[in-house]
């Protein structure tokens, strides 16, 4: 049994630099290292899940489930993508899976029911009207807009993550933008 390093948040360092040592330690079972990864990436995952689900409690559940799944799957992380990208794909799958489960149970929640009441203190002042308009979009359009419009996915990446065709992805983005423009009263809608 190898020695287990104990790495902490300070070891994560610059957010643009992949924390490979911390990831490796977590992969070997170091829970403290994994907590450091959680502290670093939870806000990004929560933002993604909140926008995909439109509900605070659902987003919290998805973030927790995603990190548990990541812990179990860390041994299979092959470093072909960035850790944050890998983590986000897990989160997207978790949201979609949860959505299917809720649909089966007829418990789909109201969109926009859990957005923050006030701007995130660490993230400047997000325009909440836009956030609520995004949350009110139909699921398919919202998913693509969030991934492509906010998180910078390419259409191919978004289509792969969501399990849809790339053409569907492009059409949904066009639809989302049109709906948003109309909802916000922007020109060209």
């Amino acid at each position: 049994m190898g020695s287990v390093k104990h790495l902490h948040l300070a070891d994560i360092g610059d957010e643009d630099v992949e924390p490979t040592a911390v990831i490796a330690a977590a992969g070997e079972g170091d829970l403290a290292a994994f907590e450091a990864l959680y502290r670093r990436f939870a806000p990004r995952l929560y933002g993604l899940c909140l926008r995909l689900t439109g509900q605070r409690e659902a987003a919290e559940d998805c973030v927790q489930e995603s990190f548990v799944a990541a812990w179990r799957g860390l041994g299979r992380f092959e470093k072909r993508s960035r850790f944050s990208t890998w983590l986000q794909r897990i989160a997207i799958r978790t949201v979609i899976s949860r959505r299917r489960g809720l649909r089966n149970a007829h418990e789909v929640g109201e969109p926009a029911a859990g957005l923050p009441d006030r701007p995130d203190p660490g993230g400047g002042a997000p325009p909440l009207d836009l956030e609520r308009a995004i949350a009110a979009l139909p699921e398919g359009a919202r998913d693509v807009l969030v991934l492509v419009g906010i998180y910078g996915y390419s259409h191919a990446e978004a289509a792969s993550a969501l399990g849809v065709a790339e053409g569907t992805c492009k059409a949904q983005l066009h639809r989302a933008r049109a709906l948003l423009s109309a909802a916000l009263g922007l020109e060209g809608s």
Partner: protein
Amino acid sequence: MKDDTPASLDEELAKLAREISPPRDLWPGVVRGIVREPRHTPPLASAPWMAYAASVAALCLAAALIWVMVYGRPPLSASGPATAANPAVIGAVPLPPGVRPEPSPGVGASFGEPSDAHYLAARAELERTFNQRLKQLDPATRAKIEADLVSIRQARDDIAKALAAQPDSPVLEQLLASALHDEFDLYDDVVRTTQPNART
């Protein structure tokens, strides 16, 4: 793709923060999930002949541990059931000479690990059996089991530290109990599935 969306919408989208701090700390829930569902351990080699021995051993092991934790002494009297009284099968040992069975302070009142001699003796024997049996496994399986054990123990230690800081937290008590159970389950899996054929 033709896009007649006004630039202002893209600008508004670009202003949105990608990161939003969760309104509460979600880490305890992550730990709970990790403790409840530790990393997958590959199934150990199994054979039909092992099924009966494994179920008997598991039953005896569980019974012995529960007995020790509740009553403070293992069921090892000469008149007791033969299977339950067999230390080699159940991984429990008789009390050391001169040690009197006494009620276990703290056991039952807390999910924390008991500290009485009976429990510690039974646990030490279980760990000894586990370590012996672990050596019989192939290196890859052994490495994975050891990694799982490190995960569980690390979680257990972290939760214990947190519990020391917040001794009244029922959530942490439950988490610690889950971690202890997971550790025993892992020992139990290895001991059961490597049970020698000669015992049956």
